[in-house]
Every structure is written in structure tokens, then in C-alpha cells.
């Protein structure tokens, strides 16, 4: 126990160093009125990092489980560094590019958290992408119709809750399989998004329909995704939001009774039932968490991208989220999950896409390079596990 704490503080220290590095990159602070908010965010970042390190029991076991993803991340970062320092006028490590990657990672991370919790408890959610899309479209449409931004945000989050509740009730009460329910949900919620709005929805439209909301919308945007009114990224706020959420999830998962319930349910829900745990209620709440986070990610998507297309906003995000969760150490069999790993898992895909852009991998090859990279990650992971098992014997 004491050993893990020592390792944990080393990790905390190095993460702190990285954080400080980031801030140096981020300085000088934008001189807008939002500067202060970002300082607040920075503090939040430090707080959430500390919380994460505190909950992350950095045993060798955990470290090894994340070795695959660490190697993957390290090698891509290494390649980007080589590009930065050796090649022509490409500057992948510049603040604005880093900020863009971090923001992508942030929003992927948010849905990854929810998806991972669901997988942890032995379920799966294939409707995440459609919920993201539906949320983005609903958020935009509501504002276009004249709903104040904050109210729209609240309504969309409630929509997420309602969706999670429906999915969850079908799974827990009707005993349908989550794969099936959420597969149907994937069609349905995408369908709802298209039925709600047959054309693109977006912030400009909302602002021009209702100029009175322009200001509050802009400041919401600055706060949640760190973009100024002209669309420039001033701060990777999404990442901070994700880190905060991750810290909360980490505390729940590793330091509260609920986390214990979820682990137990994921491994063996019968045993959990016999131990007096309200398995159905716990499952239901995880569904709600997952869909609410997805809805929140939909809001961020609209704020970040400025517009959303009902037919394809958030398409296949469930796959990215599941992949990220698995890379981050979640087992699809249920019962295994490390909160800190999820963050690492969510870092992978955006950085791979960014790297491919800088190394001019042709568009036509990007998909298979991506697939191969992910496969290598999982294979590496499995080989490491085996090696450990053998080394132990």
C-alpha cells in the first residue's frame, strides 16, 4: 500500500511538471475578460490531476496494464517532436495545434468515461454516437427557436438523462440485452435527430435569429470549449472539463461504495445481488450517466464545431469511445476499469489522426493505418499480460 502511494506521488509530480509545461505554452493569457476564467480552469486542472493521482493506485499491475497505450502515445509524440524539430516549417507542437488535439481528446474523453462505466458493469452502449448527434441538433435547434443557451443546455442534459433512463429500464426491467437495446437506440436517436431538424443547425443561425443570446452563447462557448467569438482556440477548456469529470468518475470509481458496486456487478452480478446490492438500480444509474455524458459531449460538439448535421453529427463516436475505453484498460467482459487509464485511452485516436495529417498519410490510407495502430495496441497489451503471467509463474 505504502509502495503504491510513493509511486503515485512520483506520477503526480511528473504530471504536475507536464501541467506546468502546458501553462507555459498557454501563456501569455488572453487579455480578454475570459483570462480569469481560464486561470480558474487551470486551477481546476491541477485539482483534478491531483484527485486523479490520489485515486490512481499506481501499482505495477496497473502500470503494466496501461503499458500498451503508453508506448503507442509515446511513439506518436516522439514522431511529432521529430517533425517539429527537424522538418521544414511544420510545427505540430505549437500551442494552437496542441490545443486542438487536446480539445478533441477532451470531448472523446467525456463519452469514453460514460461508455467505460457501462462496459465496466457488463453492458455496452452503441447509441452513444446517435445521442451525441441528437443532443447537438436539439441544442442548436432549441437556440434557433429562441430558447436561452443555458436553458437549452439544461434541457439537452435532461434529454440525456431521459435517454439513459429508457435504455436502462429496457435493460434492467425487461431484461433485454444492452447490445440490442442500444443498437435499436442507435437507429432511433439518429432518426429523432433527423426528424427534429432536416437541415444543419448552428450557432451563427441561432445568433442571427436571436441576437439577444449572442453574448451568453459566446461566453458559454469560451467557458466550455475555450473558443473565442472568432473561432480561435484560446484554451483547451474541453480537456479541463473532461479532466474534472474524470476526476469525479475516478473518485466515485475508486473511492466510493458505488464504484465497488459497479466492479462487483461487472464481474458477477449474481454475487452482487446476493450481497444485497440493488443491481438494477446501479445499472440504471450507469446508463443514465453514460447517456448524459454523451448528451453533454453533443453540446460541446456544437459549441466546438459551430454547426451540426442531423444525419452525421457524432456518427460512429460509440466505436471511438469503446476503442478508447479498451485501450485505456477496460475489459469488454466487464469488471475491469481504471479511471486514469480512460484518459490515456482517449488521447490516442485524436493524436493518431493529427500525426497522420502531419506525415501526409493519404486520406485513403488513414483508416487502415488507424485500424492497424489500434490492433497493434491491443496485441501489445495482450502480449504484455501474457509475459507478466509467465514471468510470475
Amino acid at each position, binding site marked *: 500500500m505504502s509502495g503504491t502511494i510513493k509511486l503515485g506521488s512520483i506520477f503526480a509530480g511528473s504530471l504536475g511538471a507536464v501541467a506546468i509545461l502546458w501553462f507555459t505554452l498557454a501563456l501569455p493569457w488572453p487579455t480578454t475578460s475570459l483570462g480569469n476564467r481560464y486561470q480558474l480552469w487551470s486551477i481546476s486542472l491541477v485539482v483534478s490531476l491531483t484527485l486523479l493521482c490520489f485515486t490512481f493506485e499506481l501499482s505495477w499491475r496497473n502500470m503494466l496494464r496501461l503499458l500498451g497505450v503508453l508506448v503507442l502515445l509515446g511513439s506518436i509524440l516522439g514522431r511529432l517532436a521529430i517533425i517539429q524539430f527537424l522538418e521544414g516549417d511544420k510545427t505540430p507542437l505549437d500551442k494552437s495545434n496542441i490545443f486542438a488535439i487536446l480539445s478533441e481528446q477532451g470531448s472523446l474523453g467525456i463519452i469514453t468515461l460514460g461508455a467505460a462505466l457501462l462496459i465496466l458493469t457488463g453492458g455496452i452502449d452503441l447509441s452513444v454516437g446517435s445521442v451525441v448527434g441528437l443532443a447537438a441538433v436539439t441544442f442548436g435547434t432549441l437556440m434557433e427557436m429562441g430558447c436561452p443557451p443555458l436553458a437549452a443546455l439544461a434541457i439537452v442534459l435532461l434529454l440525456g438523462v431521459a435517454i439513459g433512463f429508457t435504455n436502462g429500464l429496457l435493460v434492467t426491467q425487461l431484461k433485454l440485452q444492452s447490445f440490442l437495446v442500444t443498437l435499436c437506440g442507435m437507429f432511433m436517436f439518429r432518426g429523432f435527430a433527423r426528424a427534429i431538424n432536416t437541415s444543419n443547425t448552428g450557432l*451563427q443561425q441561432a445568433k442571427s435569429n436571436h441576437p439577444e443570446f449572442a453574448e451568453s452563447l459566446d461566453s458559454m462557448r469560451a467557458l466550455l470549449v475555450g473558443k473565442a467569438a472568432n473561432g480561435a482556440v484560446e484554451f483547451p477548456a474541453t480537456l479541463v472539463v473532461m479532466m474534472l469529470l474524470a476526476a469525479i468518475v475516478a473518485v466515485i470509481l475508486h473511492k466510493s461504495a458505488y464504484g465497488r458496486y459497479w466492479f462487483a456487478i461487472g464481474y458477477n452480478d449474481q454475487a452482487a445481488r446476493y450481497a444485497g446490492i440493488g443491481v438494477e438500480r446501479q445499472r440504471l444509474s450507469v446508463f443514465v450517466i453514460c447517456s448524459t455524458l454523451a448528451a453533454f459531449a453533443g453540446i460541446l460538439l456544437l459549441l466546438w464545431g459551430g454547426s451540426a448535421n442531423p444525419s452525421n453529427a457524432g456518427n460512429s463516436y460509440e466505436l471511438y469511445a469503446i476503442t478508447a475505453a479498451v485501450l485505456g484498460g477496460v475489459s469488454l467482459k466487464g469488471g475491469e476499469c481504471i479511471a486514469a487509464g480512460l484518459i490515456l485511452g482517449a488521447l490516442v485516436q485524436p493524436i493518431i489522426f493529427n500525426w497522420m495529417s502531419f506525415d501526409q498519410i493519404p486520406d485513403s490510407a488513414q483508416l487502415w493505418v488507424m485500424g492497424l495502430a489500434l490492433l497493434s495496441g491491443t496485441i501489445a497489451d495482450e502480449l504484455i499480460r501474457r509475459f507478466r503471467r509467465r514471468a510470475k509463474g
Partner: protein
Amino acid sequence: TKKSGSGKVKVAIVTNCTADFWLHAEAGAKKAAAENDVELDFRQPKTQTVIDQMEIVEALLKQGIKGLAVSVINPEEQTPDLTRIAGQVNLVTMDNDADKTGRLCYVGVDNYLAGKEAGRAVKRALPKGGTIALFIGTTTSANSKDRVAGVLDELAGSDNRAEIRKGNFQEKYGVYTLYRKAPITDETEEAKARTNAESALEQLKNTPDVAMVGLYAYNPKAILTAVRGKNLVGKVKIVGFDEDFDTLDGIDKGEIEATVVQDPYQYGYVSVTCLAYVAKGGDKTKIPQKEIKHRLVTKEGTMIKGVDVEILKASVFSTTTRESLAAVK
């Protein structure tokens, strides 16, 4: 010290999605890049979303490009971002415009006028009126709305653009009935486009004077496949958009009336030429608008009375297009 790539001026093109249409643009762009001795980076987002497109654009800005041509997906929403980007690098819009961004110029056809051209082709095929079915990938993007509006306005002989942009359609446009009172969409999936056409044919089997209009590049051939499958070649009139080889082939065989082409080759060629000119110190203020005129492809390729666009012969156009594509491969 940094190794400085090829040392050439770099320009980039970002399309709105991945489609065959853009192969032609790529061919033109490569040609222009070679002529102007610039380095070209041609990128296609994996899905037709603003987020994917802007991700590519932002990353390109860190790669030392001196000029950028973009096919705008959502003009209104992308205007703030593109305005900012136009401040950092020379920007050209192509295929779909965002005119309040401070771009150098717009390279492309007017989709509304192109739509009207398709409408005229329908009128020639069914002069006494009839039922028309419109097929299109999506109706969410600006250029698809314009295209649909163009066709319907031409048929109606009046201007309904505002209503159509809002997604409100009428039963009748002039002497023409709009099948299902809306365009049929397929989410840009070819297989879906085909089933859509098949079921439409099934329902219009007993209706006289039917024309089907395919407004995305793959739509005409999806319609043609369905029409052939139901043995209705010749009975159902087909009017298309863009220069898919199967479409051109169908026109040559007389199965399709005509197709309206936008000349994507010129999109690429003109965009890169323009960007290279400015990057090498050319005078920005002297760049004229590069409006490209749409053209019409028919079987004969001969002048048609009252039509003032260039008219191409399908078989010839098909051959030259193939050659220009092959030249860059």
C-alpha cells in the same frame, strides 16, 4: 537547423467529403501545381462534417501552407472561422462559397442556375408536364438546397427559393407533380440510393410521364440501374448531375436524357493557379471572381434552341475526362 522540405511554395485543397467528383478536381489541381511549380496537399475529410473538415484545415495551418482552397460545407456557420483563417493565409472557396470571409475568390458554378439547367432538361423530356422524382444525398447542405430549388423553380416558372430552403415543398410545380412532395434522400449511400429509386419506380409504375432527377453524382446511375432492373428504360426519363462515367455511358446509349456538369477539373486547376499566383507575390486585388459556368452533356452534344450553355457530346466528354484523369495517375 531544419530541413526545409522541398523548398517549394505549399498550397492545400480541402474538399467537403470523399467522392469521385473530387478526383477530377485533384487532377486539375495537380496539373496546375506542376505548371506553377508549387507543392500540393489535397485532403478529403472522412465524413461530410464541419468538425472533420476544420480539423484538417487547422492542422494544415501548422504545416507551412501559403494558400488554401476549401469547399465550404456550411457557409453561414463556417464564416467566422474562415474569416479568421483568411487573415492568416490566402483563402479560396470553391464548389460552395462563403462570401463574407474575405476570401480571394470563389471558384465554382452557381448551383441554383445549374439546377435550373437540369429543370430545363426535364422540361424538354416531358414538355406536357408529368411527375418528377428528385433524388439527392442530403438536403441539409447549402448547395443541395440550391440545386433542388433550381430544378423546381425552373419547372414552376416562379421563385420559391425561400420556402424550399426551409424544407417546405408543394405538390405541384407548374404542370409537374413532385413525387412524395419532397426530394428523396439517401445519406450519400449508393445502395440506399438504388433502393430508393427502385421503390419509387414501383410506385410510379402506372403513372404516365415520369422523370427522375438524380442530383448527386451517383444518383443518376443508381436510378439507371433501377430503371433497367424494372425494364423501364426509355419510359422513365432520367436527368442527372455530374460526370460519373456510368452516367455518361447511359447518355451515350440514350438511356439518360442529359446531365449537368460543373467542371471540377477547373475547380482544382483554377484554385491552385490562383493561390500560386498570390503566393508568388501576385496582386491580390487584381484577382477576378472565377465563376465557372456549368455545362450540359447530351447524347448528340449539339446546340439546343434557347439554351445558352456549352453543350458537350457524352462520348467525347467521357473520353477527354478519362484522359485528363489518367494523366495525373
